[in-house]
């Protein structure tokens, strides 16, 4: 019997507020160490936290984005433990009364099916500083710039059954926070970090003992770390050993997970309500106002793309994967003539454009081709100025910045499609003349064989016309002329 993999994720998202969650310090990334740490961030004697209302609004936006119950009366609690980059000796977090309760998010699996993943809760907390172990000759440096940055910790149900599902979930969360504009989602800078809880069991059995892979910071590593952990757990259990609940780190170089501490060594965090902060009350008016300010979210956008634009479920899924991509698509569609151009725009964006950006390792926001340029190109294909094939050439030229618009490139490179039948007939005559043997063969063949040879003649004609001949006209004329 095979093993069933059970995965739950805890995703930490840094909220993109101007200032920290409990102090007025800036949250800009990458500043000189300890230049963005105030008295409060340093945990000086006598300082007190004051809650940043923007962080609360961001959390509520997220809660509405996953259709969760919003904690109308949420409470900050202290999580007590000692660590050099935790200035107060406790982290202000939420325990019994989080700001976001039960919700869910839909993920798309490889086979195109949609799976709903439960979200247990999401709560606000402050980030810790950073311990720097290099270049301090055996000592440790402490940078408290990050201390107090607002975090939203999003805890999923153990609903994922493969590493790929876990990645799909992480991507869905990433897309959502970008749509909601509550985080830059920059994983390389640590704006989004994942803890992966992994266990395995025989189907139908109760959950196995889990181990938690801490601080995974890319989609690729989520997949690899979980795969490595699952193989390790299978090996342990199949060798008759048992899993000890513990926290592990993923070693990228060795592609293995390594235990940090077991449950027995784990901290007793001694949570209790923070007496320095009042409960956060979200009233109806605030909730209504925040709800009204939400943008169209991926699920709704996807449904609209399918029903109103007639896109396939797959295309719609690809295009709503990020707010930037869907915005690019919609702008392209508008530039290409509106809803009637939806399918063409979808094909170009999800096909040629994404492939080209992939090759160039560029993000959609850095695309060398603008939606207006791509829309202009699609217009010229639709009105038969150029063929689809020439269109790809024009697109490549736009990517290479060979012209400011499709029209300019078509004009300067003489790519306008040849629709004059006289001119096409002339080319065909030339091709027939210089391929007498093939013509002979064609005329002697049965229908099946003719169909095969026909492609050869089309190719020769297109080549001779440098791709500009209208393909439909070529087909019609060629058929008649070959037999006459």
């Amino acid at each position: 019997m095979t093993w069933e993999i059970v995965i739950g994720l805890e995703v930490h998202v840094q909220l993109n507020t101007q200032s920290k969650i409990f102090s007025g310090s800036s949250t800009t990334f990458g500043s000189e160490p300890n230049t963005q740490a105030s008295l409060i961030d340093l945990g000086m004697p006598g300082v007190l936290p004051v809650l940043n209302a923007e962080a609360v609004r961001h959390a509520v936006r997220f809660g509405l984005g996953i259709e969760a119950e919003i904690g109308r009366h949420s409470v900050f609690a202290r999580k007590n433990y000692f660590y050099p980059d935790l200035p107060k000796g406790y982290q202000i977090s939420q325990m019994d009364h989080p700001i976001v309760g039960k919700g869910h998010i839909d993920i798309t699996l490889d086979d195109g099916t949609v799976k709903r993943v439960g979200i247990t809760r999401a709560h606000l907390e402050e980030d810790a500083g950073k311990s720097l172990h290099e270049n301090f000759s055996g000592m440790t440096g402490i940078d408290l710039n990050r201390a107090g940055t607002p975090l939203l910790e999003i805890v999923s149900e153990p609903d994922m059954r493969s590493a790929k599902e876990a990645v799909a979930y992480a991507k869905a969360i990433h897309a959502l926070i970008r749509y909601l504009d509550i985080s830059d989602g920059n994983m390389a800078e640590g704006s989004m970090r994942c803890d992966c809880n992994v266990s395995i069991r025989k189907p139908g059995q109760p959950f196995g003992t889990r181990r938690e892979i801490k601080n995974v910071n890319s989609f690729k590593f989520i997949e690899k770390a979980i795969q490595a952990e699952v193989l390790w757990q299978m090996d342990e259990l199949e060798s008759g050993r048992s899993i000890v609940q513990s926290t592990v780190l993923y070693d990228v170089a060795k592609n293995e997970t390594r235990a940090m501490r077991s449950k027995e060594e784990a901290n007793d965090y001694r949570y209790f309500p923070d007496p320095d902060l009042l409960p956060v009350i979200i009233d109806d008016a605030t909730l209504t106002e925040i709800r009204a300010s939400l943008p169209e979210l991926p699920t709704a956008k996807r449904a609209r793309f399918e029903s109103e634009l007639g896109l396939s479920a797959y295309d719609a899924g690809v295009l709503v994967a990020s707010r930037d991509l869907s915005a690019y698509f919609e702008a392209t569609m508008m530039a290409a003539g509106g809803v009637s151009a939806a399918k063409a725009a979808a094909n170009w964006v999800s096909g040629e454009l994404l492939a080209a950006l992939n090759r160039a390792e560029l993000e959609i926001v850095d695309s060398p081709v603008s939606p207006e340029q791509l829309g202009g190109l699609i217009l010229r294909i639709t009105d038969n100025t150029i063929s689809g094939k020439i269109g790809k050439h024009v697109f490549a030229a736009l990517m290479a910045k060979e012209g400011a618009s499709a029209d300019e490139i078509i004009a300067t490179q003489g790519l306008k499609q040849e629709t004059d039948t006289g001119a096409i007939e002339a080319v065909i005559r030339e091709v027939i003349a210089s391929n007498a043997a093939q013509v002979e063969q064609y005329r002697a063949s049965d229908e099946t064989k003719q169909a095969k040879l026909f492609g050869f003649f089309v190719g020769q004609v297109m080549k001779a016309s440098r791709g500009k001949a209208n393909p439909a006209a070529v087909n019609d004329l060629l058929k008649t002329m070959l037999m006459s």
Partner: protein
Amino acid sequence: MTLHTLTLADLALGLERRDFSSVELTQHFLDRIARYDSAANGGLNSFITVTPERALAQAVAADAARSNGTAGLLSGIPLAQKDIFCTQGVKTTCGSKMLDSFISPYNAEVISRCDAAGLVMLGKTNMDEFAMGSSNETSYYGSVKNPWDVTRVPGGSSGGSAAAVAARLAPAASGTDTGGSIRQPAALCNLTGLKPSYGRISRWGMIAFASSLDQAGPMTQTAEDAALLLQVMAGHDAKDSTSIDHPVPDYRASLNDSLQGLRVGLPKQFFGDGLNADTAALIHAAIKEIEKLGATVVEVDLPNSGLSVPAYYVIAPAECSSNLSRFDGVRFGHRCENPKDLEDLYKRSRAEGFGAEVRRRIMIGTYALSAGYYDAYYLQAQRVRRLIKQDFDIAFQHCDVILGPTAPETAFALGAKQEDPIAMYLQDIYTIATNLAGLPGMSIPAGFVSGLPVGLQLIGPYWSESKLLNVAHRYQQVTDWHRQLPTAFA
């Protein structure tokens, strides 16, 4: 010169009349501190740090403001600040070795407000370490002597402030009160001490002991002075989320209101077995005086008050165990020599930096919050806290103020209770409930037993500071206990 026998109200008048300058006044008190306070010369030891330069600079500025006509009412009057308030550029120790090297980079809101009012800070007063104690004997800087009998304690934790004002080394001082730390030393040193409603005075920069209970307040010679100083300290502060945006009345305006019809509640639980008989007699006499002023007396019931000490000794240590975690030897404060690793750094820095009582309370609090004990201790104590609050709500349906003793006995001998924490904790048996309920409480002089002062406690509903000051003031108009000075410091 007898400048030191003047109240804040008198001093304000004198300065306005140019009877003396702030510089003269300040120098007078600095001289008295030099003469009476040095522990090395057998003095009171009520100050940890004296700040003559800062004081004289403030005095010069106050005198200038007075000539410009920009001086406020209390401008130029000296006072002492408890060493729990962070003071920019000044050593701020909280009575602990842990902070012996700590020069605060910022001002507590109380310091800022006093500075802005033109008050002159003479220095920082001694206190029980991190405000944990009722005798001032847990201070790293040594115990403080009670000016009424230098073999006895001044009370605590604001013992330095109490002794300094009782000996008139300062005309007034700030204190803080978590379970009685303003009122009990005020009682033991014959002062007027007021713990306002929780949230009345900003806690910003006041080094936290138990955040949900800590509240600053004035320690003065008279109720009128308490009103004057509270006026400076009170008010909403956006930097403290627990500070409440409630209008600040003119506390002096109602001092002389009639007490006719005032309903005085006497909780039977405050007059039980633990109370010294001589003290009880004085409290009853004081209540008689207040009756003569027009008040009527009713008995009230605070059925859960017996639970206040146990509840307090779960909640306060729980909060302190967390509040004091920041003293870890990493960023400021005491750090042990040559730590061999991180754990060694934490353990030795904290074991060396904290005294025995602080360590005891951190241990108790850590235990009370631990997995498996949290419900039985911390949550249970919070339930008791709600019951105590409820008791007061019901009692105040039948009376306007509650009167009783502040402390069960007069000042005890130095060292007498040091080995018995429970006996020490019972010093606050009458004061702790008000902190748990967040209510204002006050102690005023009510007479002497064998030459030692006794304090009468007044407790009122939330925001009733004006009423408490009114009752205290009227009482002080017909008594002169508060005018008595210890002869050695007259």
